[in-house]
C-alpha cells in the first residue's frame, strides 16, 4: 500500500442509502486522495453499483445517514448535473441508448456544457470535431462513431469505449468506472485499460468497480476494497485482489474469523 499525502478528493463517512425504503448501503467509509486508484470488488448485490450511483447522484437513491465530502464541498448538496460539472464522472455499467441523437451532438453538448460551467472555452462543431477525433484515436475508435446514434446498436465493447471517450472529454477529477470490464473481450479490455491509464494522473483519482481480477492486471490499483452487504468489509493492496481470485469471496469470511479468533 502506498502512503499518499496528496489532497483528499473524496471522503465518504458512514454512508447509508436506500431505494424504496430498502437499505442497500449500510455504513460505507472511504477516503480517496488525488493520484490514487481504488478498486471495489464484491459479489452481485453487495452494493457496489449502488455506491457508484449514489456518488453520481442518481435520484432513485436516498441517503439516510452519513456524508460525502468532495473537494471540500458537500457532494450531497449537488444535483447530478452539478456533480458532473464539478468533475465527478460515472462510466455506466449499461450505457443508455438515445435513438436519433448523433453521438457527436451529444458529446459536444456535454463537453461544452461542462466547459462553460468550469469557465473554460467552448468549441464550435468544427473545432470539436478535430478535438474529439484526437481523443478517439486513443481508444482506437472509428470515425463513424460520431455519426451513429448515442449507444444505439453499439456492441458491448463499443459502448464501453464510448464511456471512456466521454471521460477523456470531460476530464473528471474523480472517475468512477462501474464494471467497465464486463462484456469486454481481452483486446477491448486492453484498449479500455490503456485509455484509462492514459487519463489517470496525479491530480485525479479513479474508483474501479469490478467482479474480476483481470481488469486489475491492466489498471493497477493502489487499494482494493471488498464490499459485502452494503459495507466495505476488507481493504488491502493490489495483492488482495489476487488472493480473492485464488480463494474466492468465502475466503474473506474464514480469514476474518481467524482474525477475530486470534484477537480474542
Amino acid at each position, binding site marked *: 500500500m502506498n502512503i499518499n499525502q496528496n489532497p483528499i478528493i473524496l471522503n465518504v463517512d458512514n454512508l447509508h442509502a436506500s431505494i424504496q425504503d430498502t437499505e442497500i448501503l449500510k455504513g460505507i467509509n472511504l477516503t480517496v486522495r488525488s493520484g490514487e486508484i481504488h478498486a471495489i470488488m464484491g459479489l452481485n448485490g453487495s452494493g457496489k453499483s449502488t455506491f457508484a450511483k449514489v456518488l453520481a447522484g442518481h435520484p432513485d437513491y436516498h441517503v439516510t445517514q452519513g456524508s460525502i465530502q468532495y473537494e471540500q464541498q458537500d457532494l450531497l448538496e449537488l444535483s447530478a448535473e452539478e456533480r*458532473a460539472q464539478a468533475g465527478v464522472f460515472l462510466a455506466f455499467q449499461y450505457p443508455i441508448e438515445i435513438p436519433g441523437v448523433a453521438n457527436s451532438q*451529444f458529446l459536444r*453538448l456535454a463537453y461544452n*456544457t461542462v466547459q462553460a460551467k468550469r469557465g473554460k472555452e467552448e468549441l464550435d462543431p468544427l473545432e470539436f470535431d478535430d478535438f474529439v477525433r484526437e481523443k478517439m484515436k486513443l481508444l482506437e475508435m472509428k470515425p463513424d462513431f460520431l455519426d451513429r*446514434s448515442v449507444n444505439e446498436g453499439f456492441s458491448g465493447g463499443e459502448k464501453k469505449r464510448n464511456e471512456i471517450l466521454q471521460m477523456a472529454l470531460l476530464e473528471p477529477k474523480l472517475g468512477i468506472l462501474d464494471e467497465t470490464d464486463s462484456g469486454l473481450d481481452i483486446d477491448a479490455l486492453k484498449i479500455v485499460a490503456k485509455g484509462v491509464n492514459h487519463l489517470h494522473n496525479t491530480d485525479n483519482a479513479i474508483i474501479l468497480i469490478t467482479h474480476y481480477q483481470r481488469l486489475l492486471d491492466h489498471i493497477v490499483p493502489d487499494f482494493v476494497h471488498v464490499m459485502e452487504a452494503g459495507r466495505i468489509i476488507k481493504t488491502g493492496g493490489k495483492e488482495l485482489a489476487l488472493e480473492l481470485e485464488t480463494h474466492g469471496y468465502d475466503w474473506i469470511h474464514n480469514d476474518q474469523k481467524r482474525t477475530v479468533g486470534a484477537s480474542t
Partner: protein
Amino acid sequence: MSAALQNLVNQPYKHGFVTNIESYVAPKGLNEETIRLISAKKDEPEWLLNFRLEAFQKWLTMTEPHWQNVKFPKIDYQAISYYAAPKPKNKLASMDEVDPELLRTFEKLGVPMHERAALAGVAVDVIFDSVSVATTYKEKLAEVGIIFCSISEAVHNHPELVRQYLGSVVPVGDNFFAALNSAVFTDGSFCYIPKGVKCPMDLSTYFRINTQDSGQFERTLIIAEEGASVSYLEGCTAPQFDTNQLHAAVVELVALDHADIKYSTVQNWYAGDENGIGGIYNFVTKRGLAKGVNSRISWTQVETGSAITWKYPSCILRGDNSIGEFYSVAVTNHHQQADTGTKMVHIGKNTRSTIISKGISAGKSNSSYRGLVRIAPTAENARNFSQCDSMLVGDQSGAHTFPYIQVRNNSAKVEHEASTSKIGEDQLFYLAQRGIDAEEAVSMIVNGFCKEVFQQLPMEFAVEATKLLSFKLENSVG
C-alpha cells in the same frame, strides 16, 4: 415520476392574446339562411352557393363521428357563429396599409409577416380569421404563371379552375366535418402551378383563429399540373380562450402526371390549460390525389396544439408509379387528445407509400396513431412501409396504435413496424451525469426521436418545429 419530469409538463401557452380588430360577426346558428348570408357576403356565383347547399343537405343527414379514440362533449352547432370578417376597409395596395394591430399580432407571434416573407424568401398568404388581408409575392409568382391567392379571390378570378377541382378529392358528403366545411367555409388558400413549373419558393400560409367562439372553416385547394412541383407550408397558432373553438378545415391536393406536391404543417393552436379547460377542436380533412403517372404527394405534419386533433392526411394513389408519403410528429401534453394518422389508398400499378409516425405523449394526454393502408385489386406491385413509434413522458400518458391493412392484390408488399418507448429516469440520469440538465436532455431525446420527420421539413420550419417541441415539453426544471 420525478419532480423534474412533472415540471416539464407545465408550460403556459405563449401565443395567448386577442387582437382588437373590428370584426363583423354573423349571428350564431346554422341554417340555409346562414349559408346564403356567407355566400352573399362573399359575392359568390350560384354554382358555389349550390355546392354549399348540397353539402349542407348532406350534413343534415350525417352524425358527428365518435369512433375515434378521443372524448369531447357534444358540440352545439347552433351556438357557433359561422362567419367573422374584419370590416371592409379600403383595398390594400401594400403592406404599409395593413392594420398595424394585425402586424403587431404577427410580431407577438415571433413571425413578423413581412420580415418572414423577405428573409426566408417565402410568399405568405395570410388568413386572419376568415378573410385574406394581405398577399405578398403574388407578382413574382405570377411571372411564372403560378396562382397563389385566397380561395375567395380564386372563385372570382379563376372560377373554371375552382369549379373543376373543388370537392373533387374530398366530396361534399365525404364525412361529417368535411360536409360542414363545404357548407360554410369562408376562406382559405388557392394555389395553381401550371404545367412544367417548379415553384421557385416555398409557399406559406399562417392561419390564425381570432374571434372568440367563431368556428373557422378554411378551404385549401392546391393543383399541380403535369410536371409541376410545389412545397407548401402551413403554420398555425391561435390565441387563448376558455371556450372550445371548433376548427374543421378541408385541404385538397391534386397532382397530375409527374407532378409533386409537398405539404408541411406546423400546428400549434391553443391546447387548453393544464386542467384541460379550453382549447381548439381540430377536425380536419386533408387528402391528396396523386392522379397522374409518377406523381407524388407528401404530407409532413408537426402537431403540437389543439385540445383535440382528429386528422388523417391521406393519399389516393391513382396514377401508376405514384408515390404517397406521410411524416408525422404528434405531441400531446396535459389533457390533450390526438387521434391522427393517414390513409394510403393504392389504386395504380407500382404505387408506393411510406408512413413514418412519431407520437409523444406527456402529462395526462393521449395520442393515437390510426392508419389505413388499402391495396386495391388494380394495384399491381404496390408497396407500403409503415413505422409508428410512440414515446411516453412520465407515467400518466397513453399511446395507442390502430393500423388497418386491407390488401386485395397478392403482389403487394406491406410492412408495418411499431415501437413504444419511454423517456426514463435512466436516460435523464445518464445525460445529467454528463452535465446536461433535464430540460436540455428532454429536448435532445425528443428531437432525436423525431429526427426522421424533421428531416422532411423545409429548413426554417425544421428549426421552428425543433424549438416548438422543446418549448412544449420543457419548463423551469428544478
